[in-house]
């Protein structure tokens, strides 16, 4: 990160930044490239397909509007993730009242998802075990505090590196690591309970 900042001060990042701004200006390409990723992150954070869609669209809209403010000190994907994180946080704050609805629908979703993970070679016992484990992990992730959940999703679903997550979340790498450890501990606990 420091190296990138030094490059910015040296003015050597300007062509890269210009290229990134050009990428942000082409909304069609931007959506085609990053839509599934941002939508997935929003969906797993909010557990509401409609709201996730709304957040995704707002994310691209904001990115487009603020493209001139983009300093180019991180990738476009990281910047979009940062915008999405803020939008998700705002949405969860305003929708706490409706949380029970999504919580109720989770059980059915997990059942359906576990069915899709079923492969022909699995014995019924193994499948049942996987299903229980998935249910446990799914619930555990849902119950994680906001930042822990976001960090967990970005690391293990989006497969982002820790410094990228730190930039996207506006946290220190050490804090990200700490959140990840706590999240993994919760997942481990849930899996042990499911066994």
């Amino acid at each position, binding site marked *: 990160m420091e190296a990138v900042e030094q490059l910015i001060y040296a003015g050597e990042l300007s062509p890269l930044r210009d290229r990134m701004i050009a990428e942000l200006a082409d909304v069609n390409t931007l959506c085609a490239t990053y839509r599934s990723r941002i939508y997935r992150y929003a969906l797993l954070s909010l557990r509401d397909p409609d709201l996730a*869609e709304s957040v995704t*669209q707002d994310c691209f809209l904001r990115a487009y509007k603020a493209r001139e403010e983009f300093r180019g000190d991180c990738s476009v994907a990281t910047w979009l993730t940062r915008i999405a994180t803020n939008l998700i946080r705002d949405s969860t704050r305003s929708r706490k009242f409706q949380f029970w609805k999504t919580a109720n629908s989770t059980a059915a979703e997990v059942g359906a998802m*576990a069915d899709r993970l079923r492969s022909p070679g699995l014995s019924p016992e193994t499948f049942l075990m996987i299903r229980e484990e998935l249910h446990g*992990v799914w619930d555990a992730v849902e119950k994680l505090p906001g930042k822990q959940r976001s960090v967990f999703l970005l690391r293990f679903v989006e497969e982002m590196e820790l410094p990228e997550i730190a930039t996207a979340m506006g946290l220190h790498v050490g804090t990200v690591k700490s959140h990840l450890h706590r999240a*993994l501990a919760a*997942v*481990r606990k849930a899996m042990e309970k499911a066994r």
Partner: protein
Amino acid sequence: MNTNHLSPWEQEEYVLGQRTPEMLRHLTECAGCRAAVARLEHGVAIFRSAAVEWSSECLATRPQQLNAARRGSPVLALRWAVAAVLPVLLLIFALVSFHPSSTRPVQRASDISDDALLEQVDQQLSVAVPASMESLTNLVTTESRNGSVATSARGSKHIVQTN
């Protein structure tokens, strides 16, 4: 065999990709720790598979909406709206400013008609008396012709008393 098993923290570090040579060495030797790490990795992996699957399905049911892009150029939309409305506004303004006589007489006529109407109402109010009181009105008007308004009032009182 190394008997210092990996702590939960170390197992998590391994899953996070922060692997030290000591960890790796221990995992090659210790089946218990290997199983514990594999279990945690498996939990994360099934979550990821399910999450990606669910997201792909949800996304597949939605059209490739680019409302953000469409909404992304509100200035352009505003320009089109202004371009469409401006000639109409100019036309209306031109019609109004080049034919001033068409509006003014109407206004004057309405003013006159309003005044006339008000006057008529006043007259009606001052004149209109119930039919049963009409004879008294005649008496009052006769007296008021002879004296002042005050005397007419007194006269009307007198008339009422005599009745």
